[in-house]
């Protein structure tokens, strides 16, 4: 693990992306091959199955360090990272030659499913032999929360630099479902092309912050609803029928209603679109909550298939007749998509995501305002001339979302954050008024500046009324404007409601607690817009 620990230290010591790319490229040139493959796997989110639960790891580490569990938890809440807490509290390790990354990971991947004593013994033995940096990384791998501050794009660039392969080829070969235990490094840098279930890297849009008039003529753009579903890539080739999520998860089996498409789509077809739970009577999507029930199910009961049938709204055609269309302009791809869909028999759960047209930007803005009536989050604006690019490239694809719903609420509880934000109080629980009572209804932990979090942290420290482990109860005095994307009924919450994507928009120092919103106002919104 020394070589890997040195790479980690080099990446951790800089925020410069060029320095990170260089360190990574150097590693990809010089590290042992099996280690390189594992590193690519880890940095693209492929990690070994968990060999222990976080509860087990906490207990084993606390026992090994002869510390009570509560003191372990206090330490964790300061450090903000489970693996680092464990690495720091364990007694010093005996000096030994630590094993390499690939051996470590192979050994780890054999542990799941073994009896608890065997897993405990293997992990304790590693903890006892690894030096501090390696011990931290080993435990990071165990906890599964492994990030090295390296984006997928940065790693792709480093791999391209190290091997001389084209970035787009590397990006595609990293997609999909490959096993680091059986993959050769060389195959990771060859473009696999249109074969098997191999997906293409998704093109991603950026949020539109400027006025849309800045984008020029509306005729240069294609507009669609920005759906609130899950992005999917459907592949129908001679040797494979597959549905991939944006997170590169193979989700074919979770949506059995798409199986008939395999019989009707021409071979060599790859479609990019949005998976939605569909209300066929109202001819619009069901609320996201309905789709959520589907996502979590690996096998879908019949009743749920009826209650929340899935439909794919296609917005792009990436491959037709086995030919990669991605370099062609969007308008051309879209025309091919429409032709292909038109030729399909009726009754299939696949349709085009409709194009929205208006003569000018105010017209499109008016459509956007009506997005919620279509259960959409706003508009997508895509340049008609744009190729299907790899990853996020600003300028061609924009998401033009509606402004969020807002509510003014008061902070009731505060908890320290994790990672970079450990030791700062950043995770807050908020309440609205219900008569004379305050009812907690949402948690949020983003949206303020570091300076604001620091100021609130000092306030929390000097105003703590009660401590519940890492959570502090504070007087209901600080008022915040929260933004959220949706609201739904929730019997699990005391307030009876749950918000979608709540976050802090502003700290309302100007607003007294007496003027915060009421539970009734949220109930009214739920009745009007709720799902």
């Amino acid at each position, binding site marked *: 693990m020394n070589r890997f620990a040195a790479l980690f230290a080099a990446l951790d010591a800089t925020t410069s992306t060029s320095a990170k790319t260089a360190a990574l490229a150097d590693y990809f040139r010089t590290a042992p091959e099996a280690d390189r493959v594992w590193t690519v796997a880890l940095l693209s989110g492929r990690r070994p199955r968990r060999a222990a639960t976080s509860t087990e790891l906490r207990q084993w580490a606390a026992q090994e360090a002869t510390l009570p569990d509560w003191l372990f938890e206090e330490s964790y809440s300061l450090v903000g990272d489970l693996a680092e807490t464990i690495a720091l509290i364990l007694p010093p390790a005996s000096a030994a030659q630590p094993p390499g990354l690939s051996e470590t990971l192979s050994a780890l991947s054999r542990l799941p499913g073994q009896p608890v004593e065997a897993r405990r013994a293997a992990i304790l033995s590693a903890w006892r032999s690894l030096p501090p940096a390696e011990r931290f990384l080993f435990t990071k791998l165990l906890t599964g929360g492994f990030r090295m501050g390296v984006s997928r794009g940065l790693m792709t660039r480093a791999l391209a630099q190290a091997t001389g392969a084209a970035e787009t080829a590397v990006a595609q070969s990293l997609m999909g479902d490959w096993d680091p235990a059986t993959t050769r490094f060389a195959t990771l840098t060859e473009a696999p092309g249109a074969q098997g279930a191999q997906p293409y890297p998704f093109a991603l849009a950026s949020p539109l912050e400027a006025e849309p008039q800045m984008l020029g003529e509306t005729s240069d753009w294609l507009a669609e609803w920005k759906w609130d579903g899950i992005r999917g890539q459907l592949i129908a080739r001679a040797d494979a029928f597959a549905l991939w999520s944006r997170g590169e998860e193979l989700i074919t089996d979770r949506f059995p209603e798409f199986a008939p498409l395999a019989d009707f789509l021409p071979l060599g077809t790859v479609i990019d679109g949005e998976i939605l739970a569909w209300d066929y009577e109202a001819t619009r999507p069901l609320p996201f909550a309905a789709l959520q029930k589907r996502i979590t199910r690996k096998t879908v009961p019949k009743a749920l298939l009826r209650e929340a049938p899935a439909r794919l709204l296609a917005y792009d055609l990436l491959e037709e007749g086995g030919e990669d269309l991605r370099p062609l302009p969007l308008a051309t791809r879209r025309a091919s998509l429409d032709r292909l869909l038109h030729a399909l028999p009726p009754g299939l759960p696949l349709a085009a995501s409709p194009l929205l047209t208006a003569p000018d930007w105010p017209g499109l803005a008016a459509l956007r305002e009506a997005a919620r009536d279509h259960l959409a989050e706003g508009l997508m604006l895509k340049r008609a001339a744009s190729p299907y690019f790899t990853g996020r490239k600003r300028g061609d694809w924009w998401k033009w979302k509606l402004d969020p719903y807002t509510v003014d609420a008061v902070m009731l509880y505060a908890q320290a954050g994790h990672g970079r934000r450990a*030791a*700062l109080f950043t995770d807050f629980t908020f309440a609205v008024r219900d008569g004379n009572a305050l009812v907690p209804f949402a948690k949020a932990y983003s949206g303020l500046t570091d300076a604001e979090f620091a100021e609130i*942290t000092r306030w929390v420290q000097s105003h703590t009324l009660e401590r519940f482990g890492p959570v502090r109860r504070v007087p209901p005095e600080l008022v915040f404007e929260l933004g959220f994307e949706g609201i739904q009924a929730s019997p699990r919450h005391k307030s009876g409601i749950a918000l979608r994507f709540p976050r802090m928009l502003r700290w309302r120092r100007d607003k007294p607690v007496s003027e915060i919103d009421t539970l009734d106002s949220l109930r009214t919104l739920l009745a009007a817009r709720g799902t």
Partner: protein
Amino acid sequence: MADLLTLTPQGLYCPPGDFHIDPWRPVSRALITHGHSDHARAGHAAYLTTPQALPVIRHRLGPLTAETLPYGEPQSINGVTVSFHPAGHVPGSAQIRVEHRGQVWVVSGDYKTEADGLAEAFAPVACHTFITECTFGLPVFRWQTQADTIAEIAAWWGANAAAGKVSLLAAYSFGKAQRLLAALPQLGPFLTHGAVEEINGILRGQGYALPETTRVTPETTAKTHPGALVIAPPSALATPWARRFEPAEEAMASGWMAVRGIRRRRGLGSGFALSDHADWDGLNAAIRATGATRVLATHGYTHAFARWLTDQGYQASPLETEFGTEAEDAPAAPTPDTTDAPLSDEGATN
């Protein structure tokens, strides 16, 4: 029996002796453990401290009425016997022993158990009640030896110099900065920020052995002093003052650097866990060595540390003071007036 030391709005107070220890609001008689600004504050009518600590206190607070008492020498104040004992925190720092009618209390001030070669080495003092700081009172804080950490800093400096870069090391200007200067091998010129150099001058005048240093002036740049190590207070990092040394590497020497999340919050690539406070093992060993049965924990993880001590059989509780007020238990939180103020490692606002 009444407590020998109690908490008043002014600070720790000894009723029979009618004096305060490190008070945070003006009092008639203040016994001062050391010169950091959360312990030595302005406005008291009379000060008593060690002869080694007084020059820095005078420099920081201006004219004041003060007496000194050498380490280990008892003095009676209204029938209460007080004495100062080395705390190993910074040059001149002391624990204060207070004895009255057979009861002995010791106020630790800030302390460090490892001898650093510059500050007078920590010596345990037997007592019944020990008021201990616990800035780093969690088991995640375990320091390497000073020799190991100094070797790491020297390696970092050497590598930067070889790459044609100046090394900018953030350290509190009183204590940590001089400790580094005294311990580091001289691989190139030592440059100092004015705040550090002023303390250097005072300590040199007292006879503390420090290497030759050069104060940074408007003319000083990376070109005039290639391969230099610049020691500056943390607040000087990422300012126009620091930019003259580009291309430079920045790091900080502080106990908080033991935690990666805190180092990253500070935006630092490199950090060295070098503290002037006792670590977890140091705190526990120091408390055992006093033989005290009662322990009051201040300044740091007071609740957790007091609970731990209670589990260990001590009669322990947290004592809420205003030491380390910059951020009671949020070492990474910047202060409101200066967002790049130092961490509360030493509690000093320099």
